[in-house]
């Protein structure tokens, strides 16, 4: 990277000017893939429409199918138009499209890579991208080794004057060994600060909201420990089934798909100590401490649950069971629901279990962290008065309706003393409407700005696998898998799992 020169027109106090990345290009491998079409292209358009891309931004699509530049243009235009969040402006698209290039070719075809090199050189000259290029690997993990090694072979991994960055998507491996292998492949070619691991469920917005909530306020941190907290429930539920992803999903299952990355990251953010600063490395250090001290349950049979959904009625629609979904092999054992208890061996959290659960075809789509507090040690009210009073809870809602809910007891109006739970709601969407850009907009912008990712680096990924691997081993040894009807909140075994500890799941 060249020595930093300060632009005289930029002033840190000038908060009206948006942060715009310097001249650069984004090279997307797998441009015709589902993710690129549904998310990446619309996000690039939205960024351009909001004026957040540098003049002369370039996008190179590398794809295995060759359908010519004309068709390529149509495909991208359709993708951008149907997925865009901001209003469609033909002029913006025309200007943006001037910087688009298409390179067809197989990933192991050296000629195609040379064409890519020529294209990028041209862009440096015509569009002024200044030797700054980000490579987005929107391809199945099986193809990573060939693409990454070709990037190295053809000299794409090092820049003369600009920068090179590489973006990879989850899954980051399917167990500890494969994660280490993946890290080795990518790490040999790109230095760690140039590797952006993207976990879109944990967009920076969400992470920063949790951090702001915990550490900018004085009133929550004093009770954020085992003196006051009884337990924590982290839920990521989806109402949809596996859709067309049977091939991928059946080999992975819910725990590896969601718990390893999203839920353990959320747990780390909720449980970690205050970082000394909010830069990426201090944050990572604190998260790693939590992940290193998080323990899978000792009695896997008592404190984990896995299940598959059965046919049923979900949200008013009749849906098929997991085994009847297209592409799922007969007798598949992949779990579509996973729940487990995790204990964190630190002074702050000893004795406070974290219950993690995720699943497909559950009651509704929701991601949330619920901190459930201990009951008041003494109640001056009679038992009858507080019959309907539950535990106080603080719920950080992550999606779809981002916000915070505080649940506490209040007196029911009337002459009798009767206390009942009420909710106090705060919605980010209510107080700040504009912001909340689509996660991918923020992610792409961060990559182009070179903002050190708040996303996991390889240590965190490996630590997460160390927590999850023993649970999956245990599940593999089971002869049977539990089931639950589609559209409900999971199997009975998950309820029993909490009942053993004298607790119950919150209905999110």
């Amino acid at each position: 990277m060249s020595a930093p020169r300060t632009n005289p027109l930029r002033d840190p106090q000038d908060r009206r000017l948006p942060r715009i990345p310097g001249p650069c290009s984004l090279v997307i491998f797998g441009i015709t893939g589902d993710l690129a079409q549904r998310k990446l292209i619309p996000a690039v358009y939205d960024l351009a429409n909001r004026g957040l891309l540098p003049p002369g931004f370039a996008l190179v699509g590398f794809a295995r199918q060759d359908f010519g530049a004309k068709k390529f243009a149509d495909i991208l235009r359709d993708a951008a138009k149907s997925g865009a969040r901001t209003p469609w402006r033909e002029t913006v698209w025309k200007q943006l499209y001037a910087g688009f290039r298409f390179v067809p070719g197989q990933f192991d075809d050296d000629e195609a890579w040379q064409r890519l090199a020529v294209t990028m050189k041209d862009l440096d000259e015509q569009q002024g991208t200044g030797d700054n290029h980000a490579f987005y690997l929107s391809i199945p993990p099986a193809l990573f080794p060939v693409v990454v090694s070709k990037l190295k072979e053809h000299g794409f991994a090092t820049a003369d004057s600009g920068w090179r960055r590489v973006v990879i998507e989850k899954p980051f491996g399917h167990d500890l060994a494969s994660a280490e292998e993946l890290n080795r492949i990518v790490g040999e070619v790109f230095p760690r600060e140039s590797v952006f691991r993207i976990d879109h469920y944990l967009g920076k917005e969400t992470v920063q909201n949790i951090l702001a909530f915990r550490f900018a306020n004085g009133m929550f941190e004093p009770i954020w420990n085992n003196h006051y907290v009884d337990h924590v429930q982290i839920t990521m539920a989806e109402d949809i089934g596996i859709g067309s992803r049977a091939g991928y999903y059946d080999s992975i299952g819910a725990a590896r798909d969601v718990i390893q990355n999203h839920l353990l990251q959320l747990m780390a953010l909720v449980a970690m100590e205050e970082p000394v600063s909010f830069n990426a490395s201090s944050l990572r250090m604190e998260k790693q401490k939590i992940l290193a001290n998080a323990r899978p349950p000792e009695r896997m049979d008592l404190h984990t649950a896995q299940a598959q959904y059965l046919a049923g009625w979900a949200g008013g629609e009749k849906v098929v069971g997991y085994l009847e979904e297209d592409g799922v092999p007969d007798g598949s054992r992949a779990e579509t629901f996973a729940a487990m208890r995790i204990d964190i061996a630190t002074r702050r959290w000893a004795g406070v279990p974290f219950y993690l659960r995720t699943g497909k075809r559950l009651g509704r789509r929701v991601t949330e962290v619920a901190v459930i507090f201990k009951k008041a040690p003494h109640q001056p009210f009679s038992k009858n008065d507080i019959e309907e009073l539950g535990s106080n809870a603080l719920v950080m809602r992550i999606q779809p309706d981002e916000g915070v809910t505080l649940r506490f007891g209040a007196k029911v109006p009337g002459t009798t003393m009767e206390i009942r739970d009420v909710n106090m709601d705060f919605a980010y969407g209510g107080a700040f409407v504009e912001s909340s850009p689509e996660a991918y907009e923020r992610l792409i912008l961060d990559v182009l700005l070179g903002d050190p990712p708040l996303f996991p680096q390889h240590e965190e990924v490996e630590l997460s696998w160390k927590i999850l691997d023993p649970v999956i081993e245990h599940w593999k040894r089971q002869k049977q898998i539990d089931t639950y009807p589609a559209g409900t909140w999971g199997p009975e075994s998950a309820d029993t799992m909490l009942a053993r500890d004298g607790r119950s799941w919150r209905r999110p």
Partner: protein
Amino acid sequence: MEIALENTNSARIARAMIKARRAAGSPAMDMVLTLVVITDDETVGDALKTANLLSREHPSRVIGVVLGAKRGAAALHAKVRVGQDTSGESILLRISGELTKHAESVVLPLLLPDSPVVVWWPHNAPTFPADDPIGKLAQRRLTDAESTTSPVRALRQVAANYAPGDTDLAWTRLTPWRTLLAAALDQATAPVTAGEVVAGRHNPAATLLVAWLESRLKVPIAFHHSDTDQIAKVVLTTRAGDVVIERVNELASHFSVPGSSQREVPLGARTLAELLAEDLRRLDADDVYATTIKHLLATR
């Protein structure tokens, strides 16, 4: 729900507000600020429409103040609205007679507790906004020099009386230009030796642009007058060649920096609601604006 009140006072308006809120199922719980719009009979409709658009991004309690004839007996009529296609709530106050001199006494009890207050004068802003009785209640005071008959003079007047929290919308209108220029100098790294702005003579935004460029770049910037009102072109001369940004139509401009070919980039005009939304994103003083107007008054 809408409640109209004749010959009323602030306490009765506040009670109507609570009633309307309950009737509407308390939709307006997350309001972040109070926006006071000071206007007259002619412009109140448009101003409140803009304010309601704005409350989609910044849910707010909008208080429209219509100052009527100064003569005659003091009178206060109000209309309270909650829900009905807006995310916030609005109060329209019609004030006349002796009370016009004490409008702040009506507004004060109606402000949201503890939340920031923003005053916006769509037209006829006072020359000393921070000294205005209602202006005094606010953290942010928004004036609009372009709405006056001699915009540059109006800008200089409010600039001369600047207090932290003031901004003129001319400055807000400039943001897209400033963004492009800053992006240009991200690419053109050679030092700037001179510059030129081509714009209408009476364009307050252009006046601010010249002052901003001078104060940041520390080189003289020439101001050439054009026939059109808008900013037509900006040239920054660097040792490596010229940075040129030239408007080609209402939506786009040509952008060229030394060492790469000319490109078309978006540069559209924004609506009043969008401008205000940008301004309300920050509720503290705009220091860069303060530096710029200081430079403007010192040099021109």
